[in-house]
């Protein structure tokens, strides 16, 4: 029977019984399977011959995702990653070996998968997701993200939400997103414009540990404060425009020496090389097993969506493995005022006495906005622009003016920023 399938699928690489395990799922429905499931040849043909899937990230999650997809029967896989392989990747990114250090992750991972799993085509792109346009993303049936950057996730999320054309069902690309930290992780399914999107849940992220500048400058107490002093205040003072490269051991060495000297001066203990690197690179602990769990959940959802063999996750799964195994599956709700998928302006209440500068500070601090260096405009005027320099200079005096003098109650302010992949609209009320 399996031999007959090979002939039907016409793929010379599919030996008899190759898909013995997966086919048990694809040959008949389970008790919870949706009636639209087309068991048998049709679904296998779609999965193995037509379905095209994009994997963003070829790191800790990406390596696992590529292997799982290949074994599950996806044959046309694309992968994007802008990074090269580092020795610290080797404790979990299992498609890489010491000889590969310095090589592009996407290319090495793609070659490894194609060597190990016959008949699977993996097309790598060594570069940024922002290099690609809507036409590129439109070619895929599904997108899986294994990223460690909030910025990149916001970008792909906003891009896929923007691509949805209600007249064109094919334009809706399910986005499956995973993330891990130590023994914890989460996987979620986003149907752009239908379910809650990445931007809707921005406030669920842990607030990054930011130390107040006055603590760093005047009252350091922890070794971290000394390291921040070295990297944030001393580096630019000593090296002027030379950019700090956190991958350069000489740069880390200088920071470590400088932070150690300050720690000694203040009798603070605990500055080590490893802590210095951890603080300046914002290192998140990562292990193979947690990545395996989360990548498997992502691929399981991709497989269920591509085949309809079982209902897909609605829409968020989180797992904590520190104390026994605790997991929580729930539906994350859409935010009506989500700037990406909600379509409504974000209502903000501003104190009548606040200056424009104070408003900008508030936007930077807000966990559901997360913006750095925003530019603000209204329909009729430029409130403050970060660049070019002439316009910055021209609008700078506004920073000290009261917002209430610049914007009428109920008016809209548009916020743009280099790190923000969309325009954020605010509606202002005064308190």
């Amino acid at each position, binding site marked *: 029977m399996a031999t007959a399938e090979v002939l039907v699928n016409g793929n010379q690489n599919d*030996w008899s*019984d*190759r*898909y*013995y*395990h*997966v086919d*048990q*799922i694809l040959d008949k429905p*389970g*008790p*919870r399977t949706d009636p639209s499931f087309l068991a048998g040849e049709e679904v296998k043909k779609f999965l193995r011959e037509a379905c095209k899937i994009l994997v963003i990230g070829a790191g800790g999650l990406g390596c696992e995702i590529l*292997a*799982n997809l290949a*074994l*599950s029967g996806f044959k046309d896989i694309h992968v994007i990653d802008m990074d090269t392989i580092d*020795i*610290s990747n*080797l*404790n*979990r990114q*299992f498609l890489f070996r*010491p000889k590969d250090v310095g090589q592009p992750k996407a290319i090495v991972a793609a070659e490894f998968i194609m060597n*190990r*799993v*016959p008949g699977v085509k993996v097309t790598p792109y060594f570069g940024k997701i922002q290099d690609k346009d809507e036409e590129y993303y439109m070619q895929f049936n599904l997108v899986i993200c294994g990223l460690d950057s909030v910025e990149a996730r916001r970008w792909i999320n906003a891009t896929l939400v923007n691509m949805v054309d209600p007249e064109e069902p094919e334009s809706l690309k399910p986005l499956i997103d995973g993330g891990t930290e130590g*023994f914890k992780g989460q996987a979620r399914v986003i149907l752009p414009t239908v379910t809650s999107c990445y931007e809707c849940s921005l406030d669920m992220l842990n607030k990054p540990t930011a130390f107040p500048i006055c603590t760093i400058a*005047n*009252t350091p*107490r*922890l070794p971290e404060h000394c390291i921040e002093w070295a990297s944030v205040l001393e580096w630019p003072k000593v090296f002027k425009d030379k950019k700090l490269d956190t991958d350069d051991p000489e740069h880390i060495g200088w920071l*470590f020496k400088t932070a150690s000297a300050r720690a000694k001066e*203040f009798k*603070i203990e605990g500055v080590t*090389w*490893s802590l210095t690197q951890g603080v300046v690179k914002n290192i*998140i*602990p*990562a*292990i*193979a*097993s*947690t990545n*395996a*769990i*989360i990548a*498997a959940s992502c*691929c*399981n959802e991709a497989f269920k969506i591509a085949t309809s063999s*079982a*209902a897909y*996750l609605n829409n968020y*799964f989180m797992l904590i*493995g*520190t*104390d*026994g*195994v605790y*997991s929580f*599956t729930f539906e994350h709700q859409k935010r009506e005022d989500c700037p990406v998928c909600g379509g409504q302006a974000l209502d903000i209440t501003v104190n009548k006495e606040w200056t424009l500068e104070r408003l900008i500070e508030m936007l930077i601090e807000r966990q559901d906005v997360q913006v750095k260096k925003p530019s603000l405009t209204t329909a009729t005027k430029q409130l403050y622009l970060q660049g070019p320099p002439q316009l910055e200079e021209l609008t700078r005096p506004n920073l000290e003016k009261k917002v209430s003098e610049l914007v009428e109650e109920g008016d809209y302010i548009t916020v743009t920023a280099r790190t923000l992949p969309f325009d954020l609209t605010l509606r202002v009320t005064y308190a």
Partner: protein
Amino acid sequence: MSAAVSESQDIEQATAAIHSRPPDNKTRRYDRQLRLWAASGQNALESSRILVLSSSATATAVLKNLVLPGIGHFTILDSAITSPADAGNNFFLAGPSSIGKPRAQEAVPLLRELNDSVEGEAVVKDVKELLRTDDGKAFVSAFSLVIAHNLQKDTTDDLSKLLWSDLNYPPLLVVRSAGFLAEFFIQFHEQCVAQPHTDENVPSLRIIRPFSALTQWASSLDFDSLDPTEHGHIPFVIILVKAVEQWKASHDGKLPATMPERRAFKEQIAEMRKKIDEENFDEAEAQAWRIWSDPPVPGAVQSLFGLAPLTPGLTADAPNAGFHALLRTLEAFVSAPDGPGSLPLSGALPDMRTDTESYVKLQTVYKEFAAVEKVRSRLVIAPAISDEEVDTFVKNAHHIRVLRGHRWGEWDADKEALASSLSIFPRETATHLGLAALSNLLSKAPDGSAVTVDALRAEVHKLVGDNVELPEDLESAIGELARAPTADVPNTAAFLGGMVAQEAIKMITKQYVPVNGYCVIDMVDMWTGTVGGQ
């Protein structure tokens, strides 16, 4: 004496030197995991020897996640010959070219290439046969952990009985899966966790039970005479010690206990301010919870004091002998008439809004007193325990955990317990029962030909009793099992590979808290749950 001092300085200097150099290649390779389990966890992993029964897709997925972080050694024991189906679902076989060759032998080199420092070997033998011989039993019992995937029911029975028969035999991790459903169970007598990395009990700062240096500081400091800058830099710990002192003086020596009293206590703190925007006083109010409930010994730790060791004599070679010796020492420390009547001070101090000088001074006060208490608690400690172990134990004394496990299969023989669990956790218990029923049917016909929904339901009834009403969830579970009774699908295998490796790492490093009971997994509705651990 002077020799000892210079020796300790050498160690300090040597340690400082290690911490001030760029790390070596091994440290760089393991950096992201050393930040979790540190050198002590890594050493434990590197000394471990793991036996895996089967080289299925799930088994190799587990091994991948143990070889990468660097266990010492693994052996795959499996007599299977690679089938075309194996070559299709297992990433650690070389595709069609492995077909017809011993599966374990094909998998070992592809796993070993993940990490040069890990030893691995294949033993192409049948585990059932092996367990019939004394040599075979000795071989299996000599590992630090044994993991079995979809092993036949009667073989799992034999294996679990063997490994349960001696307290020094290794824990056994039993893994079962079919299609979208899976479960695993860890059989162990006792797991002592000195570093659970959970944050449920915050180490006490002894604000309501202050040691002399703390009391002196608080009472010698005349808040009112300080200038505004100094006043704005008093550490919250000192503010709270002072506030508690004042409260007790006007409340018959009692602490604020009721809601109104607690509110009044916070108001008392607010009145101590000089200006409304003193952040250290905001912090003192926000941290007032530290005095609401600060038992001398957290309940969970107190209950460990009454725990009888599994080996009454506690000889030095008994399992967890060091941990139990430390536990007894801790108990003696708490009950010593001249002691604080509480757990020793951990020495850790959270960051707080204050100036550098006050913070460093307070940190020194805590560290010095923690050292005093550590010395005092050491007096009773068996000499065989290293300084490092004592340090870790004292630092984590508020969190330590002891788990007592069960023999695999014990729960399945307890009809009453199963029926009760079925009514409290229907979907988890139903899925476990379904997998147990499937295993029974597969032992009759390994190809799955005897598996039907009706046959599975009948097996479940045999386990729980005929008159127990089965929940709706059982139909979902057995329907899914009948659909794919022998399917080791890649995503489930990878998911289990991660889950089981996490548990293996917890068992080996004795850091983090492992699952006690059956961890059941459903990848259709994507949930996990634990049953049968009571």
